[in-house]
């Protein structure tokens, strides 16, 4: 009786219908399936049963939704925010059942019902929201409704289990593409295989779209209309930006497959397989530089039924989520490389496989990888693959790969073994600012033009950003000029400037997560690196220079005669700053913090690859109280905006970080315009010297990070590793193992050490260098391919290109040396002089090397130690001037001597 008021009387699924269906299913399971059924599809009993079952399951979905709404309405009083976290109706029912009227959620054991993050969230949310216990009657009704929902779900689970086992018989090709769950839904909604076969692809795409709540079980809104197809693995494993394209492809291929199935064409499902691979190929093209791929050909199996059912059970042992929705909710990004699989056989020579086949398989498998890892049941290795067999089987058990990890590895061991079906890795940040920041306002470019900033993971656009050119630079410089000449910033007390910067640092910390996500999204660096190190360092830099603002001291000089001489340090004026894409935020801080602390005004041009984070933090700086016009940020390209800034007659100072080639142009433009002083922080080919007395394990680890840190995109990357001949072999072996253990993948994923390179151009350049290395006789020890983006060379001679030019990618060259003098000579034999690393236990060697190496920074038994107070910059063609520390202030200060006679003073 209670249920009558719970549910609208319209469409309750009658108990008899359910019982009937269960009986038929049971019955059907006991029967053998006759593969030899050659008649029309409509005469196939199996097929009829499937259609019925499916209709029933859709009804059940409907009913669950209704029950869910009822529970939500009632339970809102007790836990108002629960529904905002637990979307899934079945999860919601389970949680409600578990909590009941308990007020202290720490006493409730959610284990197995929810992921741990949700448990924490809910427990905390409860303590901060005001829920009230339900009345006895309402509680009873609610709990009863929960029981009903769970009951319905278990029925549905049985039906879907059945469907999934049988659908493959009816529609093997369709199943191969969309999976059995989706295939059965498509059939059910379309009204049968024949009807589906007659549908145009665009309609197939929309099947189920209106009832998105029914089967998707997601309350999240869909951005574009896709029906059941959005529950397919392949759709879910596609990055959001590619999804419209993917869904059209899947729909087209699915329609084709359905037609094959409806005429009982290929009963083996191979046609569907090849269609599926075509989807992978089609999408792979959109990936640009990111063709992460497995080295083996992996296919979805349509055979091995026993394996399927066995593994489906294993998969379903997961307690949360609906039993039937496995394909819809868990997802990840397709380009996430299959770390484990890469390690299986990294030495595979590409020539063993036909080239085209290899590449195709690679793309498909990269899209498939999620599918394989989450659904081992559905996959096995195609027998004809060169890489099939034991290795492939291990790929399905990712955990086993880690046991072979080298002892000195610091790679996070839990990563590759972690359940890959985490939350979708979608940056949790809203892009607020895409316009130019001029005179305190976000404005469009004068030309109205915009450009796309790309997600390096996919090569797809994240946002359209206003494209500044000479006109915008003029506007920005005029604003900065006004702010300097007339505005309060250079005239306010140093303490007031200090306090603005301190507030800025506080705001950066308050928004650290968003800033880090934005940085990772735009630049591809691991989120853990951005959030754990870079954003805190940005705040640290700002605080450091805030502390300098009121400590900028000039000297009072002892004059030769009766003169009083004092030195004033005054702000230099309008500073033009051009920052690179490898550390967009850190470079922002290195440039902007000292300039502002001294009282300058700034026009900053960001790299066109990474314009977003600077705009975001610049808005925070204004929130902190910086006057308008003091910091102007212009996004744009070097030849237009950058060149305009460099040759502007009203810019008093230029600071640039980037490549040596561009640095030359900038210095030239400054010379041709108003002779503005320039500081340059340019490229390097920094030596990392490992002496025979060094701690090899530690040296391997640091040498590894020295070169691979930030995808190798570090101006100070220790890219020439000199190793003493006595430890050379040990070093190479261990380095190889370490490189192979490097976790490359989606930078948003925890434990990932290396994300994608910044863009296609950079990527191609790196591969060219790798090729040049091989061509000139170096031995490629590991990687060298787009797969893992891990390059690794030994035995090149010093004259080789790869040992001389900056590669700016994850390529390590290991060179052998005999003695200290030899290594000093070779280490210095480079046009660069940015940094150097020395690994030794000998005090004397350390002292000798520290002085002998012609480089701006020498790290002894450490590397990449960046501290706000330690000056950084290059010798030779690595640059002009120093940044950071008190030395960084000099770039932004003019020095003025004030001299006046003293008459009859007691002393001088």
């Amino acid at each position, binding site marked *: 009786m209670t249920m009558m008021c719970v549910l609208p009387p319209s469409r309750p699924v009658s108990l008899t219908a359910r019982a009937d269906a269960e009986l038929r299913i049971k019955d059907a399971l006991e029967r053998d399936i006759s593969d030899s059924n050659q008649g029309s599809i409509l005469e196939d009993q199996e097929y009829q049963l499937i259609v019925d079952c499916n209709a029933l399951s859709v009804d059940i979905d409907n009913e669950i939704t209704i029950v869910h709404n009822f529970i939500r309405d009632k339970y809102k009083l007790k836990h108002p925010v629960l529904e905002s976290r637990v979307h899934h109706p079945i999860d919601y029912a389970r949680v409600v059942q578990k909590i009941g009227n308990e007020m202290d959620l720490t006493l409730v054991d959610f284990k197995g019902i929810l992921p741990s993050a949700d448990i924490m969230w809910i427990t905390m949310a409860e303590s901060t929201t005001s829920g009230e216990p339900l009345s006895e009657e309402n509680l009873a009704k609610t709990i009863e409704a929960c029981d009903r929902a769970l009951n319905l779900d278990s029925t549905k689970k049985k039906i879907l289990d059945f469907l999934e086992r049988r659908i493959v018989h009816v529609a093997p090709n369709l199943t191969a593409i969309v999976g059995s769950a989706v295939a059965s839904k498509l059939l059910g909604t379309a009204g049968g295989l024949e009807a589906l076969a007659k549908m145009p692809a665009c309609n197939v795409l929309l099947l189920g779209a209106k009832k998105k709540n029914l089967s998707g079980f997601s309350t999240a809104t869909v951005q574009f209309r896709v029906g059941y197809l959005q529950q397919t693995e392949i759709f879910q494993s596609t990055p959001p930006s590619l999804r419209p394209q993917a869904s059209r492809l899947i729909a087209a291929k699915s329609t084709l497959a359905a037609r094959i199935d409806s005429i009982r064409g290929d009963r083996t499902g191979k046609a569907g397989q090849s269609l599926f691979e075509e989807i992978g190929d089609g999408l792979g093209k959109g990936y640009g530089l990111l063709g992460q791929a497995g080295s083996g050909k992996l296919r979805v199996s349509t055979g091995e039924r026993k394996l399927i059912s066995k593994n489906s059970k294993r998969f379903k042992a997961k307690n949360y989520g609906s039993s039937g929705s496995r394909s819809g909710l868990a997802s990840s990004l397709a380009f996430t490389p299959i770390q484990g699989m890469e390690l299986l056989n990294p030495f595979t020579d590409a020539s063993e496989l036909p080239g085209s086949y290899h590449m195709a398989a690679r793309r498909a498998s990269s899209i498939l990888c999620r599918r394989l890892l989450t659904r081992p049941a559905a996959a096995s290795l195609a027998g004809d693959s060169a890489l099939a067999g034991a290795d492939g089987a291990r790929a399905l058990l990712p955990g086993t790969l880690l046991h072979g990890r080298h002892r000195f590895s610091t790679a996070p061991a839990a990563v590759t073994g972690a359940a890959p079906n985490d939350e979708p890795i979608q940056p949790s940040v809203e892009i607020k600012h895409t316009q130019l920041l001029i005179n305190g306002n976000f404005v469009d470019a004068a030309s109205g033009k915009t450009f796309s900033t790309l997600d390096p993971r996919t090569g797809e656009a994240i946002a359209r950003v206003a494209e500044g050119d000479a006109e915008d630079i003029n506007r920005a410089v005029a604003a900065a000029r006004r702010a300097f000449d007339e505005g309060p910033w250079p005239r306010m007390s140093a303490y007031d400037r200090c306090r603005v910067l301190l507030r800025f640092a506080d705001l950066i910390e308050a928004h650290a997560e968003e800033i880090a996500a934005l940085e990772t999204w735009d630049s591809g660096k691991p989120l853990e690196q951005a959030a754990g*190190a870079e954003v805190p360092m940005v705040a*640290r830099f700002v605080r450091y220079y805030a502390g300098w603002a009121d400590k900028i001291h000039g000297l009072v000089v002892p004059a030769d005669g009766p003169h009083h001489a004092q030195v004033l340090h005054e702000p230099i004026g309008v500073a033009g700053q051009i920052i690179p894409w490898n550390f967009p935020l850190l470079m922002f801080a290195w440039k902007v913090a000292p300039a502002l602390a001294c009282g300058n005004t700034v026009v900053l041009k960001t790299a066109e690859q990474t314009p977003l984070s600077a705009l975001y933090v610049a808005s925070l700086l204004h929130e902190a109280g910086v006057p308008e016009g003091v910091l102007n940020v212009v996004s744009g390209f070097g030849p237009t905006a950058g060149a305009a800034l460099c040759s502007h007659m009203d810019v008093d100072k230029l600071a640039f970080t980037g490549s040596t080639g561009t640095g030359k142009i900038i210095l030239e433009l400054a010379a041709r315009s108003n002779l503005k002083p320039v500081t340059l922080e340019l490229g390097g080919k920094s030596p990392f010297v490992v002496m025979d007395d060094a701690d090899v394990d530690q040296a391997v680890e640091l040498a590894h990070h020295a070169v691979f840190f930030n995808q190798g995109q570090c101006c100070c990357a220790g890219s020439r590793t000199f190793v003493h001949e006595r430890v050379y072999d040990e070093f190479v072996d261990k380095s190889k193992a370490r490189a192979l253990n490097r976790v490359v993948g989606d930078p948003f994923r925890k434990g990932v050490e290396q994300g994608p390179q910044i863009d296609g151009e950079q990527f191609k350049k790196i591969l060219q260098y790798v090729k040049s290395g091989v061509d000139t006789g170096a031995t490629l020890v590991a990687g060298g391919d787009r797969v893992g983006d891990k390059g690794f060379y030994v035995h090149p001679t010093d004259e080789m290109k790869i040992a001389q030019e900056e590669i700016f990618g994850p390529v390590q060259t290991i060179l052998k040396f005999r003695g200290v003098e030899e290594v000093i000579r070779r280490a210095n034999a480079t046009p660069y002089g940015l940094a150097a690393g020395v690994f030794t236990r000998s005090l004397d060697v350390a002292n000798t090397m520290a002085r002998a190496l012609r480089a701006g920074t020498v790290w002894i038994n450490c590397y990449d130690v960046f501290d706000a*107070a330690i000056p950084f910059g290059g010798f030779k063609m690595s640059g002009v001037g120093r940044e950071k520390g008190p030395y960084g202030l000099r770039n932004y200060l003019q020095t003025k001597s004030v001299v006046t006679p003293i008459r009859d003073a007691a002393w001088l």
Partner: protein
Amino acid sequence: MAAANGSSEKHEGFEVPKVEVKFTKLFINGHFVDALSGKTFETRDPRTGEVIARIAEGDKADIDLAVKAAREAFDNGPWPRMTGYIRPTIYCIHIEFIFVSRQRVEQERGRILHRFADLIDQHIEELAILDTVDAGKLFMVGKLRDIPGAAHLLRYYAGAADKIHGATLKMSQRMQAYTLKEPVGVVGHIVPWNYPSTMYFFKVSPALAAGCTVVVKPAEQTPLSALFYAHLAKAAGVPDGVLNVVPGFGPTAGAAVASHMDIDKLSFTGSTEVGRLVMEAAAKSNLKPVSLELGGKSPVIVFDDADVDMAVNLVNFATYTNKEGIYDAFVKKAAELAKKSVVGDPFNPRVNQGPQARTSQCHVDKDQYEKVLKYIDIGQREGATLVTGGKPCGDKGYYIEPTIFTDVKDDMTIAQDEIFGPVMSLIIKFKTVEEAIQKANNTRYGLAAGIVTKNIDIANMVSRSIRAGVIWINCYFAFDPDAPFGGYKMSGFGKDMGMDALEKYLQTKTVATPLYNTPWL
């Protein structure tokens, strides 16, 4: 004399905020504790002479405890081992590591001091009230200047914590050498009552920034804000034992600090006589280095090209030297201004008017009050002319009228001794610059001097010629956290404020090692 209300209870047009004294015990090793002896002393409201609170009275035994805590915090605690700022190690991206490093980022001296300053900003009014009822400081001045100034000092040194640089040296042999600046250890601070908050942070903030641990003995007249600051420091994250505050009396607690064998450095601000005792005690115990900021009899020299209005406005209880030509005009204006000055309840914002109000019209306790009246009496007996003031005012509390003497001779007591009261001595007329310099230097003290002139040559010449730690040209009391302050001669040694103050709390260590096969030196 504009009569302002001497008693605080019946006030008109202004509000006396509620006074609440939260902390009255000794602060040792992160906790408020009673004195071992169980003794307490009373602290009085100088407006009314009434008892505000009873404060635990620390003596030698309590100082021993505090030093022990500070020693432990220095030798084994985290404070001296914290960095100016923890560097997140950027290549190591284990999730565990990040967790650890985020924790550690908080444990950094500069950031803790920044937080301390933020907490002071949040309690400005409360702290200003404490200084007003405890020291008779003007409430508005405390609220607008002294307490924000304390936060400013802290922020200055918070920013300096990561800017303590050693040097690499140019050796004349094949050697490489460098200097390290290391915290000196446990520091004893004896703080006076005239600027309870400002003096406290003059001492404490550079010592903390340098990484020292401190034992503070505030003046027995003004312990309240000192204890409140200790509470805020703890809330900001200063580890236990790093900052200890022991209120008490000079002969007991103060002497114990000065002669303690385990205190590595002593910093004292107060009178010259007590400074002598402090240094003697240091010499007799462990030869601890001492810095002293003592009394002054600072001259203000007004030249004939000066703007008289400005000059009068600038000057407070400094001894005056005036160029003959403008002497009479100056005296007249100074007297007018003194008469206009409103003496009254320091909570009354109107009392803030007039230059006299900027220093202590109202005296902190009865001894001081009687001492000032005695000096006024001596001045009159020795033949100086009393132009205005010279009497107590109000029937309650320790108020004295602003007082001006003229015709004061160099050798009169009021020209030589530090009176520390609202008494202005307009002395010697002078004819030449040389004479002015000579007369200005004719004192045992050398804390500060003022010059009022429009002439650049006179300004430069006189500022180099006067033997004093600070020269203020056309300004006075131009204090700033970046400007070192401290005396010549018997006004003491060692500077407060500026990067110089850090030096007091740092040891220099030279490290040298031979170089072999080096391409350069």
